[in-house]
């Protein structure tokens, strides 16, 4: 008997809490960040550095 009353009371309390919170405008969790613009630019920079290093090697080979 007590168990039923307690279970019902907790369910009711939970509904009240939900109703109270529903009245407030909810803030939504923004989506997680993906690739940043700065990261893309740095990726390009590092690719450029690799290309430069490759060109240097090529020049050295041709200069033999």
């Amino acid at each position: 008997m007590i168990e039923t009353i307690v279970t019902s009371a907790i369910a009711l309390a939970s509904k009240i809490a939900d109703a109270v919170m529903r009245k407030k405008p909810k803030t939504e969790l923004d989506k997680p960040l993906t690739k940043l613009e700065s990261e893309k630019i740095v990726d390009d920079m590092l690719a450029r550095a690799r290309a430069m290093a490759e060109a240097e090697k090529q020049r050295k080979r041709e200069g033999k």
Partner: protein
Amino acid sequence: MNGYVLVLAMAAFAAVTGCTHATDVQRAIAVHNVFRSVILDIDAAYAPVLREADEAAQLQAAGDSAAYLEAIKPYTDGVKALSTAKQTEQAMHLSISQWEATGNDTGILRETYACAAEAVDRVTMALGGLPKASPLYAAAFAIGTQLRSMADGADCEVGK
């Protein structure tokens, strides 16, 4: 009679706990969203600075890869700090999502706040020498302070 008082007390406790949890989650979401937008603002401000630095470094290095890498290093270091901040934002997002869904704060969130505060410190240090950085610096400083307060003494153990 005593039984009814007990039941009422339990119901009131459940209602208060439910409200508190929802309020805490809302606060965490709000802090996450500000943190996220500060990272995006810094990224937007940093991108043109990086492009300019890239052009200058290319001219200066004149095809010498070592000279080019040296010239861009301070900027790549700045982006590394920003990437770390982004990763902590992703971790914070995951922790809050799980907390919101399950109602169980695993305790990871406080550490995530601590890591985010550290990451913000590193980003602000990288931004210190940049022109036009002061409004962003102020925004980053403000969210860093809030994150540190929400970490409530927890330490960031990630990568240590």
